[in-house]
């Protein structure tokens, strides 16, 4: 599910970053990618999560996600789940999205460059997952054409922290691929500076859509 990441590049060194192998996210991704064994992750007084890579199911009950995801491996109790999966369980990828989203806190995973090109393989179930309104637009763009995180921010006028958080969640959940990873170097986006800077007049439909977006997103 998870592709290997490059070692740090000069580009990624300047971007706020976090370690994917840290804490609850690290435990979960190791269970999914390596051990393939069911695991329960508990932080006393804060929450618990359990997942089973074989059934693809997960359960979680977390009072404070920021505390849960910031906890180091030493503070977590990790072991085999006592309870079997039941009907209240949800798709495991949704737990991974939550862990990626909250662990990121607006940072990128170590080794990921903001000019790396990203493709959305499937839309997340955003009605049931933490997200911002602009993350719908990021999904639409990355599904439509592979684009770099940097260019996505320019095209959609979305701040880097949101984009990094989106990528981290989607990457943890397995919803994105990075088409240029095989070469280890970020691919240059095909858009030219001229295309980016060319102003586009807004149609009446565009005006309507912008107003409706503002109404629905509450901004």
């Amino acid at each position, binding site marked *: 599910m998870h592709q290997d990441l490059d070692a740090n590049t000069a580009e990624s060194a300047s971007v706020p970053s976090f370690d994917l192998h840290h804490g609850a996210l690290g435990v979960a991704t190791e269970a999914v990618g390596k051990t393939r064994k069911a695991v329960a992750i508990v932080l006393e007084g804060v929450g618990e999560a359990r997942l089973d890579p074989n059934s693809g199911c997960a359960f979680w009950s977390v009072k404070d996600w920021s505390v849960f995801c910031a906890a180091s491996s030493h503070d977590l109790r990790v072991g085999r789940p006592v309870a079997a999966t039941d009907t209240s369980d949800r798709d495991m990828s949704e737990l991974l999205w939550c862990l990626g989203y909250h662990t990121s806190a607006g940072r990128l995973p170590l080794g990921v460059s903001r000019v790396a090109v990203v493709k959305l393989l499937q839309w997340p179930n955003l*009605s049931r997952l933490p997200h911002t*309104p602009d993350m719908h637009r990021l999904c639409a763009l990355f599904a439509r054409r592979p684009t770099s995180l940097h260019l996505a921010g320019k095209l*959609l006028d979305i701040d880097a922290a949101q984009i990094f958080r989106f990528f981290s969640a989607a990457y943890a959940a397995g919803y994105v691929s990075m088409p240029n990873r095989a070469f280890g170097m970020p691919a240059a986006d095909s858009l030219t500076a001229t295309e980016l800077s060319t102003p586009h007049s807004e149609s009446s439909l565009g005006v309507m859509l912008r107003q409706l977006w503002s109404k629905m997103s509450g901004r």
Partner: protein
Amino acid sequence: MQKKIIFAGPVGAGKTTAIASISDIPVVATEGAATDEVALRKARTTLAMDYGVLRLPDGGQVHLYGAPGQDRFDFMWEILTAGGIGLVLMLDHARPDPIADLDHYFEMFAALIERSEHAVVVGVTRMDLCPRARIDPIRKHLLAKGINVPVYEVDAREREDVRQLLLGLLSLLDPAVRRFR
């Protein structure tokens, strides 16, 4: 021409309820007593269409049309979709074969989907009634057809859920997203 968002899907999927949840006016519903097999599920059903409105700051409106779910009203669908900018397809997860429903409505509304460049979102309702319900099979079915669009779990009675569906649809229509291929 009116700018419309069309709500479609099988009987009982939550189209009328979803429009009522989000509309800025009370929904104009053309209901009547259900007399066929629908009566086994609910007492009343949409006969022609449902109508709601989203009001915009400049005085403009976006019209919400709910298509009747029964196939014998399918002659209405083409009329309703004229001027449609996108489709909200509601699926009832408690029906025997939601994926067959998905295929059926994608076929019936193919012209609108194509004209709008795949501006379609899928809202899956009544998942709380189905143990171990997952939207993943529906999403995978669409992906196998090369269709990568939002598939969201929703409760049509919840305005917040319907709002998420519309945000998904609007993001597909966003000129900044569509500007580059």
